[in-house]
């Protein structure tokens, strides 16, 4: 399938390859690496059901390791839109692609977030979705909705973190994150993905390199297979990624005392 799309692309077409996330990423990883990335074939890989969207279907259908694995590959743009509006913007952006891309979708009925904004978000650049004065939560993809719910919960504690969403995850907007560290004492990342190779690890590296004493916390999915059948909502809760858990983790981060440098 990927090789075929590469061939189509080599004739000047822009193919879209679509399937459930794992079947269009991990299953055909080497084809993506060689046929698309190395051979420079502009193909858009579209994975439906990123994260835990296919919950009760079990681990064969979960898409929680796609970004980490694909991030090892040079040349590949990775988009993780946060709502249906951003999906449309990503699809529009495919017309100016100069390399292959991966578009990570939810499953359906993801809530609209950006439709209510006056300005059209720029997907190529991180965006401040909520202004705030108590640190920053950085997130990516449809889990943004849970983060916004968590921010509402935090308001009740008079805590007002800013929320930043990344739609283009690769190439990673390192400069933007560096600036953010300079202006913030605490940062938390939230992703519907395992920690390895994801948003949090990438951010953590920049935090560590900055040596600015920023409090940092990373919320991600544990690297393990679930013990039973669960829907997305339950899997998020079990992973500490529902709104309640996100809010609780943020409070914990704020309560952390600086140990300083010995």
């Amino acid at each position, binding site marked *: 399938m990927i090789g075929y799309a590469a061939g189509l692309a080599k004739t000047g077409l822009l193919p879209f390859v679509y399937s459930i996330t794992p079947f269009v990423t991990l299953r055909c990883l080497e084809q993506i690496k060689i046929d698309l990335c190395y051979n420079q074939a502009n193909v858009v890989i579209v994975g439906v059901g990123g994260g835990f969207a296919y919950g*009760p*279907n*079990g*681990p*064969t*259908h979960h898409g929680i390791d796609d970004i980490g694995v694909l991030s090892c590959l040079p040349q590949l743009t990775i988009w993780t839109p946060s709502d249906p509006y951003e999906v449309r913007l990503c699809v529009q952006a495919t017309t100016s692609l100069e390399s292959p891309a991966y578009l990570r979708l939810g499953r359906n009925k993801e809530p609209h977030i950006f439709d209510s904004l006056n300005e059209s978000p720029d997907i190529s650049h991180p965006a401040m979705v909520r202004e705030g004065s108590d640190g920053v939560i950085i997130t990516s993809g449809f889990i943004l909705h849970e983060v916004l719910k968590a921010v509402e919960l935090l308001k009740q504690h008079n805590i007002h973190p800013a929320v930043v969403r990344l739609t283009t995850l690769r190439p990673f907007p390192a400069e933007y994150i560096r600036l953010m560290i300079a202006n913030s004492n605490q940062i938390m990342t939230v992703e519907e993905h395992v920690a390895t190779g994801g948003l949090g690890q990438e951010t953590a590296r920049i935090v560590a390199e900055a040596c600015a004493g920023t409090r940092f916390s990373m919320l991600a999915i544990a690297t393990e297979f679930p013990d*039973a*059948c*669960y829907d997305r909502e*339950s899997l998020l809760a079990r992973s500490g990624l529902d709104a309640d858990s996100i809010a609780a983790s943020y409070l914990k981060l704020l309560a952390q005392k600086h140990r300083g440098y010995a």
Partner: protein
Amino acid sequence: MIASQNNQASTNEFLLELRRDIIMMAANSSHVAVALSCIDILAALYIEVLNITPLTVDAPERDRFILSKGHGCMALYAVLARMGFIERTLLNSYGHNGSVLAEHPLAGKLAGVECATGSLGHGLAIGAGMASGLKLQGVSARVFVLLGDGECNEGSVWEAAALSRARNLDNLVAVVDVNGLQACGPSKDISPGMGLADCWKSFGWDISEVDGHDYRELVKILGHAAGNGLPKVILCQTIKGKGVDFMEGDLEWHYRPVRGDDRDKALRRLKGA
């Protein structure tokens, strides 16, 4: 003669019960028609062919079964429950939070499920490895792998097919549920010109064909070991959604859950009403 008629009647009743279980399970999930197309094959295997019981699920000499088309798992769960491998009440939890009955078989959670499946094209290679491993250890057990005809579009199926022939795995049986209808349309439209029988033949397999809803024929052909040094494939001609007329051959029921009026109607149609 009378005895065998009674036998036939009780088999039919049993198959009906299995279909009823499947319909009850399908309230919130896809793939009801998939399970209905392969249920007779699974029943024939577990009732009369496989050398495995709830007491021998870990016995080294047991026959192995792999549901490579993991999305047909409602059929497997129904059979495992009726045969005493799992509690029948467990079926009520299918697809629910905390249940071990996920919408594709989980790994290591159920007696009688040898491996997790759900991503197509994995089962035959695992089955070939098992068949080879058994042979190497002098165990005469057989390995059965149930594939879909749509699944045969996966290239990995044919890599395993070639290897199995090269290793003379005559203890390996591939059973193909040829319902002619895959996730996105009829197989004849998706892969026109691909003759499944010719494919398996050209890979050097012993091939036979059977009506996949004729229980007696299934038992006969599944139970017959080729013994000719060749891996064996049985192409079972089936009808997707078999047993519920309004589901038969209708792609909609690859996806649509069975609820409310649909469920009542389906249960009535099973009884021939």
